[in-house]
């Protein structure tokens, strides 16, 4: 079940990053996906 996540965050910009960290820090298994550059444009 390594490919099952509680939360998938689509986009690792300035909104997706804090969302992913918060969900992970609350204990969720998080997948963060980015198709361009992290940090947003």
């Amino acid at each position, binding site marked *: 079940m390594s490919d*099952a996540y509680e939360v*998938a965050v689509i986009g690792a910009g300035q*909104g997706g990053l*804090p969302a992913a*960290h918060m969900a992970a820090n609350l*204990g969720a298994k998080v997948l963060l996906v980015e198709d361009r550059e992290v940090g947003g444009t």
Partner: protein
Amino acid sequence: MHLVRDRAAEFGVRGIDPKSVSFDMSAAVARKDTIVSGIQTEIYKKLGRNKNITFMKGHAEFTSPVDIRIDGKMVTAANSILAIGSKPAPYAIPGLKEAGFITNYEALKLEELPNSMIVIGGGYEGVEFAQMYARYGTAVTMFGRAPRVMPKEEPELSEKLGDILREEGVDLHTSTEVVRAGAENGARFVLVREAGSERRYEAEVLLLAVGRNARVENLGLSEAGVEMDGPYVGADRCLRTSASNIWSLGDANGGLMFTHRATYDGPIAALNIVKALGREVDYRVVPKAIFTEPTLASVGLTEAEAKAQGHKVRVGTADFAGSGRAKAIGLPVGMVKLIADDGTGELLGGHILGPRADDLIHEVVTAMYNKGSAESIAKSIHVHPTLSEVVKRAAKALR
């Protein structure tokens, strides 16, 4: 660059011949890239330290509300957060696509400084890039649809910003409509309707800066069960979309399309998923800043908006021309305008055009967040000589 070229002598710096000062665009872009890649390295380090986060580089496409294909690999996610951001809105100017144009994305990656540029759009992207390129030395012609740049901002301030752009050499045209674009003999052109007639303008580069839509292409949102609200993702005040297990944040939802709004939304979406807190976003007090020089920053209602909402208002203003600090740094331009309810004294809006307005606005933000009046700003001691004294003077003028 423009300070060195245009103002060195004024500050007593000798030995600079303005004619010999030139700007190396590729060096500036390389410097920016170095800064950005340093920031990205920090982001990857922080992600690497978080054991609960798996990072994947690739394009995500929903095949159902819980199934996502990432460049061919299938994963499942009980819940998802769309943090997809925005992209320039398609703008139906005949011939524009064929003529070739750039957007904000390419405007920060140019290898060479263009000799001339036409900026289409009088909003925040338009004014920022118009001033930036004009100061680098590009001949900039700008076309806005509204009667002034930044039409949603306090008129006194956006009119003044337009004057400043003109003084700096931007050929600014307002109340215009770009009706056609094209390319001929190596130069690009636009046909513009203004004051009842059509005129043709030419430039090396066309920059389109006319608003942004959610970046939803090939995301499989209909398979996910997520409904759109016009060009944006539809989300409620808890940031939940029409699909009960999918949330959405930031620019993609429309409204206040600023990075700090997305950063604010992020943890709220996460809390609502993981802890089911049902927390609502609070957009009562969202500041914004336009990074021209002087900066334009604002929060809350304009005077006209406050009146339209039925408030009897009190207005307090103060000019940067009266600030010793603004004079010393060579930017004694602009003003602070505060708007309060006449009965309760509650601050309803703050608008600043001036040096460091982007920092100064936060004193107003804090007061407004606490539903406060301007009294704490007016009464508290502000350091002399600082620009913040202008905010205090405006607060005192409200009384």
